[in-house]
């Protein structure tokens, strides 16, 4: 275990978040079992008031999660100096492979809690709160993910030993090992670019289509496309965006770009990507709930800003990628 300030901050923050969500989940469980909409008893009223507490707790919890994801990457990036062979976050993560799972679980928790908040937001806008039970059931389901996240994070930091000699992005994302990561990095640039731009364009096109047509099918497609855009973008970042940013044809690291030396360009890149994907998935995820008439009408109103957000962030993300390609000193294709 390394007593790095960032690690202590993360662990303290995660424990607090967990406690808050735990409180929310327990309250949620009580609401779940005692909720009776038709009752006008004082007890029902107190349950209703508790729902405000649950939303507040989860809101803060998610905000802390977003901040902790950033702090996690920042810390992991900073502690690379402690390991022989590590040049950036990749090296620190390799120093104890649980780190990769911790990172994945952080991403998963971000999306899941984001979806939950969207459901909560929509449901609380309906007079009869039709999804209270679903909502609190899901909240209880969300809790184990947070626990898992904390456990992974804890064991990752616990298992870090500065004596470890690790390998860094050079070998992980280099061509000559046969891990998943290196095969991602060795995805040839041209096909990766084509797929990235095609999918991005598809997402923009679908956003507009979804704005004008009410079809459910379109929305499901939109969600699937958004999710694929996430995967494809990550592949694209490792495969070609990175080398344009670093201006080195062999440097495929997805974390270095978060460092000051590269003007923190990674942050807007990842933020826009996450937002685009998140908002792109929402309309499709809410389609099954449209059978409720009230939900249907309210969704058609709330959906629009979601689509705008997805559209805007997709455009921003793609512009950023295009910008780095155009203004990079690296030229892969000479004309």
């Amino acid at each position, binding site marked *: 275990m390394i007593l790095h300030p960032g690690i202590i901050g993360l662990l303290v923050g995660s424990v607090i978040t967990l406690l808050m969500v735990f409180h929310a989940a327990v309250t949620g469980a009580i609401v779940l079992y005692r909720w009776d909409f038709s009752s*006008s008893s004082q007890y029902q009223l107190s349950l209703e008031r508790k729902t405000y507490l649950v939303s507040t707790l989860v809101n803060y919890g998610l905000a802390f999660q977003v901040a902790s994801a950033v702090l996690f990457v920042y810390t992991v990036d900073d502690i690379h100096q402690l390991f022989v062979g590590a040049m950036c976050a990749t090296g620190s993560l390799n120093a104890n492979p649980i780190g990769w799972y911790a990172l994945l679980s952080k991403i998963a928790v971000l999306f899941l809690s984001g979806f939950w908040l969207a459901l909560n937001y929509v449901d609380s806008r309906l007079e009869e709160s039709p999804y209270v039970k679903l909502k609190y059931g899901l909240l209880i389901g969300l809790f184990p993910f947070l626990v898992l996240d904390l456990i992974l994070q804890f064991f990752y930091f616990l298992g870090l030993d500065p004596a470890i000699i690790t390998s860094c992005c050079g070998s992980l994302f280099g061509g000559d090992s046969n891990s998943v990561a290196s095969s991602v990095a060795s995805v040839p640039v041209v096909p990766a670019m084509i797929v990235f731009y095609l999918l991005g364009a598809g997402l923009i096109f679908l956003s507009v289509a979804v704005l004008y047509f009410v079809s459910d099918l379109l929305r499901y497609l939109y969600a699937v496309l958004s999710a694929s855009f996430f995967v494809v973008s990550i592949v694209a970042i490792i495969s070609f965006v990175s080398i344009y940013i670093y201006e080195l044809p062999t440097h495929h690291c997805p974390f270095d770009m978060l460092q000051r030396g590269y003007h923190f360009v990674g942050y807007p890149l990842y933020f826009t990507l996450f937002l685009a994907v998140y908002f792109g998935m929402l309309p499709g995820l809410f389609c099954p709930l449209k059978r409720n008439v009230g939900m249907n009408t309210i969704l058609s109103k709330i959906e629009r800003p979601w689509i705008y957000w997805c559209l805007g962030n997709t455009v921003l993300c793609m512009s950023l990628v295009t910008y780095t390609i155009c203004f990079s000193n690296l030229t892969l294709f000479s004309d």
Partner: protein
Amino acid sequence: MAYIEIEGLSKVYNVGRADELTALADVSLSIDSGEVAVLTGSSGSGKTSLLSLIGCMARPTQGKVIIAGKDVAKLPERFLTAVRRKRFGFIFQQFNLIRDVSVLENVLLPLYPLDLGMSAMKDKAMPILEKLKISHKKNLKVKNLSGGEQQRVAIARALINEPEVIIADEPTAHLDRRLAQEFLDILEVLNHEGKTIVIATHDPFVYDNRLVGKTVSMRDGRIEGVTIH
């Protein structure tokens, strides 16, 4: 159809406990748009309870509260607030102004949660303050005003959201005859402008006023009788 319809309304406090108390039992009443209705009765007869149910401040134990055609009895608080904000203006017995805040800000407070700019809000407030003759004191803190002035600030605040109904609970309890008369004069103007007014009072000076269209006398949580003038 009546603007406010109440059917079989009851309100029980502390249900299931030793101190369970029925404040209202099976009350039915209707109040038309533009009417001035007065609830009378001795202290503890349930006037305030009935007013808070009409004004969407609380939810009944049983029965229906239909405001402009919509039953609000079972609405969650969030939506109850929305209805209250849109349709009702309140004048409380103790004024309930925020004492350390200026007159203008007190009057504007109901509009804060709305998406309305500060200047637009002030444009709304100034004519009301002028009409109530307190615009010259708009920057004074409420605690520095006299009782009569505070009453007028409270009225201004009740009017700021352009409500259809004004609800006043014992509005003259803290006023002398002259100020009470002044208050009734203001109500008369408002009524002429089309506002529905519901007052709870046991002050004969109010319920014997010519303005009053309907007197509802209450006793032990029930309506004893309704007099239409």
